[in-house]
């Protein structure tokens, strides 16, 4: 499609009588529009950082500020039996910030996209993908203060650190899946995004981020094991905090829940997304 003087036989064809299944068609189109992802990401980063003097520094300072407050509160008031508590806490917080922000940013992006998408054709999931990539970049930036504090606290990283990017990748896949499911509902009911903010803060307190998993009563451990974010968080946090890889069962549970959520979200969203255009 780069040249316009090609013979008509090789022109791209759009034929509603001959479309692939939605989830596959969408993948093909995302590949055609792949250049759009970096463009949308740089737009997001630029508009976020352009009008503030501190710019990128905010991404670094935000978790640090949170950390100071929470460390003081929790190490003085609650006294969990955790050595190096700031490292535990901060790795949990940057992970959660990524998940919470990305899953809701995806839905917001798609809502922004709908005004545009009623005018020109763009595969809708490109907006979700770019929101995920933007989130991952901010996530990566927030690793800088995390690792600085871990080193200061005397954590000596080993080879298991190689699993950290894998944990981030699983988190991205899971956030994308949740975001797509959320967007499918949000296309119909905009207030679902407000309800999601309530869900996500409950979810936050039910996940061992501020506290060690041991304080979960034994009778409710099954609930913890059913929480996919907990497993994915462990894949990410275990190498940083315990300098060893999470157990094989955790790795398996994390991978399966991330992949299943992503595939499910992708199929549901791509099948339903066409309907939204018919609402007036």
């Amino acid at each position, binding site marked *: 499609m780069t040249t316009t003087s090609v013979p008509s036989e090789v022109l791209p064809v759009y034929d*509603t009588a001959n479309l692939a299944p939605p989830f596959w068609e969408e993948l093909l189109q995302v590949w055609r529009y792949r250049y759009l992802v970096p463009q949308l990401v740089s737009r997001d980063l630029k*508009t976020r950082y352009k009008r503030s003097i501190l710019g990128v520094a905010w991404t670094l300072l935000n978790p640090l500020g949170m950390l100071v407050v929470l460390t003081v509160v929790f190490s003085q008031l609650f006294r969990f039996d955790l050595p190096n508590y700031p490292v535990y806490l901060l790795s949990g917080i940057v992970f959660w910030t990524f998940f919470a922000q990305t899953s809701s940013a995806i839905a917001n992006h798609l809502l922004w996209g709908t005004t*545009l998408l009623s005018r020109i054709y763009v595969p809708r999931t490109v907006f979700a993908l770019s929101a995920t990539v933007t989130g991952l970049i901010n996530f990566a930036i927030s690793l800088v203060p995390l690792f600085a504090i871990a080193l200061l606290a005397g954590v000596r990283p080993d080879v298991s650190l190689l699993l950290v990017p894998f944990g981030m990748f699983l988190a991205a896949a899971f956030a994308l899946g949740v975001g797509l499911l959320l967007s499918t509902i949000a296309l*119909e009911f905009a207030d679902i995004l407000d309800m999601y903010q309530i869900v996500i803060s409950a979810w936050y307190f039910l996940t061992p981020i501020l506290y060690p998993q041991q304080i979960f009563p034994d009778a409710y451990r099954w609930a913890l094991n059913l929480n996919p974010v907990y497993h994915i968080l462990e894949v990410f946090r275990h190498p940083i905090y315990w300098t060893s890889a999470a157990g094989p069962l955790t790795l398996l549970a994390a991978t399966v829940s991330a992949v299943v959520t992503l595939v499910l979200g992708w199929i549901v969203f791509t099948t339903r997304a066409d309907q939204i255009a*018919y609402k007036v």
Partner: protein
Amino acid sequence: MAAIDDRILVEDVSVRYRVPHERISSFKEYAIRRLQRRVVFEDFWALNGVTLAVRAGESVGVIGRNGAGKSTLLRVIARVLKPTAGRVFVRGRSAPLLEVGAGFHHELTGRENVFLNATLLGHSRREIERRFGEIVAFAELEAFIDSPLRTYSSGMAARLGFAVATAWKPDLLIVDELLAVGDEAFQQKCLERIESFKRANVALVIVSHDLAVISRMCGRAMWLDRGKVAAFGDVAEVATVYRAAITGA
């Protein structure tokens, strides 16, 4: 089946919008209404059995009153909307001028917006770099290209939007109410560019309220009335029938 020089084939296409009697956009409201069994949708057929074929180098004008389904027809061709029934076949790359400059971001500079907008239209970074100078020159915005878009007048933004959307010769051009772009001199430039596309075998579908524009640009015209084809054929004949109908009504 589509002939080899068919660019657009719209076969017996219908589009149904579902309009709730009262606008329900929150889940809370929906849940309450649902329990009371009061969610009532009304079907609204924006297009109803419309058929249209456009070959390469041909231009077709679509006229009709507000709400007749003109824009819906363009959206179906532009792939923005899937038809509820019928078949849409489009061969080639289309350039939509549905709303010039949709997708511009006000905090970004003109330069950044050119890249963003052209990528939204499906072009790669390298293609855009190659055409960048030409786009800016056409829009006559060399002096402002690195200022944020919020400092542009609406005319400047529209010029930039038109320049980006038409920088690459498409296989088909889809135009909704073209002549809202800039001053008269610039409109003339836009028309010339579209004429040059026509000479280069681009298929053109244009929607306008303005019969003069349609008569000047198109060989054939379609009159849409409440989602149905009221008349289709030679532009002069359709214009006569249409004019008679609206003055008579």
